[in-house]
C-alpha cells in the first residue's frame, strides 16, 4: 500500500496536467479594483463630410419594377400598367385535329395583387385598352392617347372586399377575338378609376408574379378547357433583356412635380434616389476605429401625398470604383444589404439619424484596394412601387440644414504597456 501511493500521485498529476492544458483565463471579478490603466478615449465629432449630393431617377428601369402600381389619386397621381401578349394562340387541337379559334368566351386577365400594398376605400373600375401601336409604345406621350373609348377591350369593377391575392379583369370577348384573329398579339393597358383615391399593387414578371391571359377557345365544347397565355414581348428585337423587361411595365400619367434642388428626394414616382459622396479625414478612416457614424439628415415635410403614411429608407454603400464617374451608373452598383434602415413619414420634419458606421469601415484606405467610391445611395424600400416621397435638405440648403456626419471614433494609439 505504501509503495502504491506514488503511482496514485503520478496518475493524479497526469490528470491535473491534462486539465491544465485547457486554458481558461477569462476573469473580471476583480475589476475595476485590479484593472487600473489608461482609459480608452472616444472622440465625438460632427463633420461636414458630404461634399456632393444629387437626386437620380431611372431606377428601376422601365419594366424593371418589382411591382406595378395602378393608381388614381385625383389630380395627384395617375399611373397605368401595360401587359404585352405578343403571341396569341390562333389555333387549338381538338378531336385530334387542328382548328382555328373562331369564338372565345370568359376571357379575362388574371392579375396577382398585393393586398397589403393596395389601398382602396371605394369600388374601383379597371378598364382594359388596346395600346398596340406602331409608334413607340414605351413613351408616355405615345401611350396615354391610346387610353380612349374606341380602344376599350373590356373592364371590371372591383369592390373593396375583392382585394385579395388575385383579381380578374374581363375582356369583351369579341374585341379580344378580333386581336386573336387579326394581328395575333395583344398589348393591353390598364387604367383604374374610382370615386376615391385608389392604388392597386399588381404583381410583376420581375418578381415571377406574371399576369395571365385566359379564355375559353371553344365555348360550344365544354370538354375544351380554358387556355392560358403567357406574357411575351417581341420588341425590341436587338436587346433581349429590355425585351423581357417590357413584358409588363408601368406608365406614369400624372405625378407630383420633382422637388427643387434644395431637396434630396427619396421615393416618389418616377422613383428617385439620392446619391451622397463623402470625404472623411484619413485620421478617422485610417488611423482610428469608427465606433459609430451617423448621417444627420434634416427632413423637409412633404405633405403632397399621404403625409402621415410611412416609407422605409435604405442607405446602401456604393460599390462602384472611383473610375465610374457616371452617377446614375454608380448609383446602380450598390452593396447587397443596406447599412441601416429608418422609417419616416413624408410629412414629418426634423433631424433623422442614419447609422453608417458599416460604410465608413469599408472606406478605409487599407481595405479599399479597388478604390471604392466613398458614397452612399439612399433609396426607398418601395422604390418605384409607391408614390411616397421623403424630402431631406441637400447641400444647396442653408448651412444648418445640410447633411452632416457625426462620428464617434477611437484613435489607434498604442495600448497594453503596463
Amino acid at each position, binding site marked *: 500500500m505504501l509503495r502504491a501511493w506514488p503511482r496514485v500521485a503520478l496518475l493524479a498529476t497526469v490528470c491535473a496536467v491534462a486539465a491544465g492544458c485547457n486554458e481558461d483565463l*477569462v476573469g473580471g471579478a476583480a475589476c475595476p479594483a485590479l484593472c487600473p490603466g489608461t482609459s480608452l478615449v472616444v472622440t465625438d465629432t460632427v463633420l461636414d463630410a458630404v461634399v456632393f449630393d444629387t437626386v437620380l431617377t431611372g431606377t428601376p428601369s422601365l419594366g424593371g419594377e418589382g411591382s406595378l402600381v395602378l393608381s388614381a389619386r385625383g389630380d395627384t397621381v395617375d399611373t397605368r400598367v401595360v401587359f404585352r401578349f405578343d403571341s396569341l394562340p390562333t389555333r387549338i387541337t381538338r378531336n385530334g385535329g387542328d382548328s382555328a379559334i373562331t369564338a372565345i368566351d370568359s376571357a379575362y386577365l388574371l392579375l396577382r395583387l398585393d393586398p397589403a400594398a393596395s389601398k382602396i376605400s371605394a369600388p374601383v373600375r379597371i378598364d382594359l385598352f388596346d395600346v398596340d401601336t406602331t409608334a413607340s409604345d414605351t413613351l408616355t406621350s405615345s401611350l396615354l392617347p391610346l387610353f380612349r373609348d374606341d380602344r376599350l377591350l373590356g373592364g371590371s369593377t372591383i369592390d373593396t372586399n375583392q382585394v385579395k391575392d388575385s383579381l380578374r379583369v374581363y375582356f369583351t370577348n369579341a374585341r379580344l377575338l378580333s386581336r386573336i384573329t387579326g394581328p395575333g398579339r395583344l398589348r393591353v393597358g390598364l387604367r383604374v378609376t374610382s370615386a376615391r383615391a385608389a392604388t392597386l399593387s399588381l404583381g410583376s414578371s420581375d418578381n415571377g408574379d406574371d399576369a395571365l391571359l385566359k379564355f375559353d377557345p371553344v365555348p360550344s365544347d365544354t370538354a375544351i378547357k380554358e387556355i392560358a397565355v403567357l406574357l411575351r414581348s417581341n420588341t425590341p428585337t436587338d436587346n433581349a433583356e429590355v425585351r423581357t423587361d417590357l413584358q409588363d411595365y408601368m406608365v406614369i400619367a400624372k405625378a407630383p412635380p420633382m422637388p427643387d434642388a434644395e431637396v434630396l428626394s427619396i421615393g416618389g414616382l418616377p422613383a428617385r434616389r439620392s446619391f451622397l459622396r463623402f470625404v472623411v479625414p484619413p485620421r478617422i478612416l485610417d488611423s482610428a476605429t469608427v465606433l459609430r457614424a451617423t448621417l444627420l439628415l434634416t427632413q423637409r415635410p412633404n405633405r403632397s401625398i399621404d403625409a402621415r403614411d410611412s416609407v422605409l429608407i435604405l442607405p446602401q454603400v456604393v460599390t462602384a470604383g472611383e473610375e465610374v464617374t457616371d452617377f446614375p451608373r454608380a448609383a446602380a452598383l450598390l452593396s447587397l444589404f443596406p447599412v441601416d434602415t429608418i422609417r419616416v413619414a413624408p410629412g414629418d420634419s426634423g433631424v433623422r439619424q442614419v447609422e453608417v458606421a458599416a460604410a465608413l469601415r469599408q472606406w478605409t484606405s487599407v481595405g479599399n484596394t479597388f478604390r471604392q467610391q466613398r458614397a452612399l445611395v439612399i433609396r426607398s424600400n418601395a422604390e418605384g412601387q409607391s408614390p411616397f416621397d421623403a424630402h431631406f435638405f441637400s447641400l444647396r440648403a442653408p448651412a444648418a440644414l445640410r447633411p452632416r456626419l457625426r462620428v464617434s471614433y477611437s484613435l489607434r494609439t498604442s495600448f497594453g504597456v503596463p
Partner: protein
Amino acid sequence: MKAHHSVMSLAVVLSAMTSSVGAQGTLTGQGFGYPMGGLSARSKANGAGGEFDGQSARNPAAVVTGLRTGLYFQYDPEFRQVQQGAQTDNNVVPRFAALGILFAAGERGAVSLSTHSLLDRTWSTQIRSGQRLGSDSVLFTETNRSSGAINETRLTYAYAPFAGKVAIGAAFHLLTGENRLRLRRQFDDSLRYGTLDREITLAYSGSGFSAGAILRPVTWFSLAASARRGAGIELRVEDTLKTSASVPNRIGFAARFDAIPGVSLMASADRASWSRLNGLGSAAASARDAWEYGVGADFSAARSQRVVNWVYSVGYRTRELPFAAAGNPVDERLLSGGLSAPIGGGRASVDLAVLRATRQASGSVAERAWQLSVGLTVRP
C-alpha cells in the same frame, strides 16, 4: 478636398466608464507580469534548492553538479481562484516554464543552454459596461487578453575543481519575449455600432550576466551563492522603441544540510531589484525590490536494490511580488510538495511538484491557486 470640410468639431472627448487597457484583474497579473522564479519542478517542490539545482535559472555553478548530458522540459499550469466579495473567477493558466539542454564539457565542466519564463503576463478579463456614443448611451462587453512573457535565455559554463568540493560558473543572459495583447469592445447592437478590435505586440529585449559558486567544505554541508547583473532592456511596440530600463539585478544565498542520511535540509534567500525595470512601463507599473525566503527538505528512499532512489520533497517559500495591485504590495506564500522519480531505467526522470499559493494584498481581493509543476529530463 476642402480642408477637412470645415470640421464642426465638437470634439467631445469621452471615456469609457470602467474600461481600461491594462485590465489584468488578478493580483499576479499586474505590471509586466508574474515572476516565475526560475525554479525547476524539483526546486519548486523543496522550496529552497534553486541555488544547488542546475535546472533552475539561479546559480550558474549548479549546472555542473550531479547532472549528465540531457534535455529538460518544464510545464507549470496554475489553477487560480480570484475572489472579490461575492464574485469569483476560476481560471486555468497553462505555462511553459522552461526548456534546457546540458552538455558535459570535459571531466569537470558543463555547458548549459536554457530558457526560463521570467515574467509571465497571461491573463484575460471580460467586463460589462457602457458609454455614450453620439446621443445615446450604449452597453458593451469588453474583453482584454494578454499572453506571452519576458523570457530569460541563459548560456552557462560551470566548472567543478577540487574533486567537486567547489563549483563555479558564469552565464550570459538574453532577455527576450513578447506580450500579445488584444482589446475587443463589442456593443450590444453590433450592427449599428462598430466593434473595437485591436491587437498589439510588445516586444522585449535585454541582457545580463551572472556568476555563482557552490562550496561543499564537508560532506554534510553546502553553501551556494549567485548574482546576476542586469544590463539594459528595451520595450518595442510594433518595432518602434517605446521605453528602456535595466534588467533587474539579483543575488541569492542558500545552505544545505545533509547530516541525516536520506535527508537534505535547505534554506535560501533571494533578492531581486525589480525596481530597475521602472521606466519600462508607466508609473502605475512601478516595481519594487523583493525578497524571497525558502526552506525545505528532500527525502530519499530506495525502492529497490537496482533502481536509483525516488526523492520526496516538501517546502515553503514566501516572497514579495514586484508589482503592486492598485497600489498595494502583494505577498505570496507557497506551500509545496513533490517527488522526483527516475523512469526508463534511469535514462529519464520526472519531477513533480504541487504548490498551494496564497497571495495577499490590502483590499478586498483574495487570490489562491494550485500550481502544478512537471519537469521531464531525458538523458541520451
